[in-house]
């Protein structure tokens, strides 16, 4: 089993005919993901990669193909519209890759999603992958992953790839790897994903990769303390970042005491997480925690 996606996921790609959309949709299909539809307004009726039907609207795509997961490659200025269109059509999981979505657009989107059956992952995220079911819904390199029992949840993209490649090199496969995104407002947070991993019988341990900014890691620590029943290994990026400066990600800025890496590490350590001291030791710390747990 895995969380959020599995072999039965029926994926549609919004913006499938664009440069990034077509490149990554093809990589997802090569990996084994079941891409059933594409959507590009005005390009309905054509075929993507000679096999995948392209529709003019998400509503049509869902009606014709039963798609239940949408992967968005829509540029940031148009992301709000695309996310709302997917939610309105009843897509269960909406994965927004775009970086640079205006924060108030995300605020309006989150408000619209309340009380509906749709979950948003991102914006500004690499997506998610479940190696065991060969389901890749995102832009991560598929080849670095292997099937296994470690869950990964992260605010970062390439740092997650780094962590995953350390795990794979040590023979530690992954159940599901979820990139929740580097924006200040995001649809799915650490606690949401941890709760799913907690209920997933095929996940034995979770790696949590956070970074400076906000207090989501502290909320995760609180949840871990109260309700999480599996070992946790955590790494927080940005211990050397100066306060008040935005470090690339819109959400990575130290404002206030909770936002610093040290405060986050302290909260996670207090909650019982194995806090990784150096980004070079993520895999080694997991190996150690796994051997201690068994």
């Amino acid at each position, binding site marked *: 089993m895995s969380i959020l996606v599995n072999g039965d996921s029926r994926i549609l790609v919004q913006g499938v005919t664009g440069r990034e959309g077509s490149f990554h949709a093809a990589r997802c299909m090569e990996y084994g993901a079941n891409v059933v539809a594409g959507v590009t307004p005005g390009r309905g009726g054509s075929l993507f990669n000679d096999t995948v039907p392209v529709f003019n609207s998400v509503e049509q795509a869902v009606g014709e193909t039963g798609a239940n997961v949408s992967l968005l490659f829509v540029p940031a200025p148009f992301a709000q519209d695309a996310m709302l269109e997917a939610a309105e059509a009843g897509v269960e999981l909406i994965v927004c890759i775009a970086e*640079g979505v205006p924060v108030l657009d995300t605020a309006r989107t989150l*408000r619209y999603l309340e009380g509906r059956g749709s979950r948003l992952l991102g914006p500004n995220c690499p997506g998610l992958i479940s190696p065991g079911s060969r389901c890749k819904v995102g*832009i*991560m390199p598929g080849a670095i992953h292997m099937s296994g029992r470690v869950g990964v949840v992260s605010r970062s993209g*390439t740092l997650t790839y780094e962590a995953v490649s350390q795990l794979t090199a040590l023979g530690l496969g992954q159940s599901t790897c979820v990139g929740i995104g580097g924006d200040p407002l995001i649809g799915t947070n650490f606690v949401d994903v941890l709760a799913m991993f907690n209920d997933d019988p095929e996940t034995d341990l979770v790696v949590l990769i956070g970074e400076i900014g906000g207090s989501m890691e502290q909320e995760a620590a609180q949840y871990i303390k109260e309700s999480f029943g599996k070992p946790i290994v955590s790494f927080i990026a940005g211990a050397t*970042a100066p306060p008040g*400066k935005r*470090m*690339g990600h819109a959400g990575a800025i130290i404002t206030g*005491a909770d936002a610093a890496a040290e405060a986050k590490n302290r909260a996670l350590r207090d909650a019982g997480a194995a806090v990784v001291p150096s980004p070079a030791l993520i895999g080694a710390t997991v190996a150690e925690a796994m051997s201690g747990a068994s």
Partner: protein
Amino acid sequence: MPPGRVAATPAEAEVICRDLGGRAVVKAQVYAGGRGKAGGVKLVDSPQEAREFAASLLGGRLVTVQTGPEGAPVRRLLVEEPADVSGEMYLAVTVDRASGGPMFIASASGGVEIEEVAATRPESIINEGVDVAVGFQPFQARRVGRGLGLEGKQLGAAARIMTSIYTLFMEKDLTLVEINPLVVSGDGGLVAVDAKIDLEDDALFRHPELAAMGDPEQESPLEVEASKAGISYVKLGGSVGCLVNGAGLAMATMDLVQGAGRLPANFLDVGGSADEGKVARAVNIMLADPSVKSILVNIFGGILRSDIVARGILAAYGEKGAGVPLMVRMQGTNVEEGREILAGSGLDVAFASTLLEVEEKLKALPR
């Protein structure tokens, strides 16, 4: 707002002060808060004093807690009538990460940084979240106003100010509108003595008129150069230049450098869709920083190919890079080809495959 005008020269400051009746508050105009404590704001009692204070600030750099050690250049001053005040309040609207929408923050203990209020008098802070579906409501404004201890006409005036700044916040896609302090003046009215707004870079495409108002001199030249190239760059204090793809990995790389007993010269995320030219510009930016004594390249390629990174580095290094040793760690597509390009170039280059190796080899780099 109190009456006042902007001065670009000491003589202008003197004239404005005289026009205001001989007493004024002179405030440095920079892209940062914390000016009062840094000596960038002064109450002057004569036009002559306004002129002297202006001369001491203009053309120099002001270092505040928010500018970093290099400070921000002072090109303009605001000269305004001193407010006759009783009680300073704080009022702001910002984006709240926890609730996922706009949030008003207010306190009757204004006049200092809000972080300081949060640390010393947290009970005085009022939070009022806004539902973006319906917007900020009058009853919420009255609740915040009452929380500030306001009544009658002042409560009405405060509610109008809150409604206005919420409208401004939403219409201009801001991430912060802050009035600090908001004061009750001698005649019982409310006066916004100082204010600050934060624009959202990601929303500037909707507001070209705001984008055009930017003053590039308020930012470091290398940061301006990087932003033009679509590179995310922040100058730091150390000597190891870091070129990385992805913000999280870039921060982790800085942490790794520090863990190895060196200090990073910069944060630099070259982005996922970089090409040879962009990598070259990133390297050029680092080579233009005199504090950079070595360069560490850490690329985890999915989309970004290692051979392209290698060609970009070579293009920038040319002769300029002589004497700046290079350490390269690349993972992903075409790694061997990338290594061969650099190894055959005659540059002083060391290779690493894993972060553990990077950490080890960092210790050999010059301080």
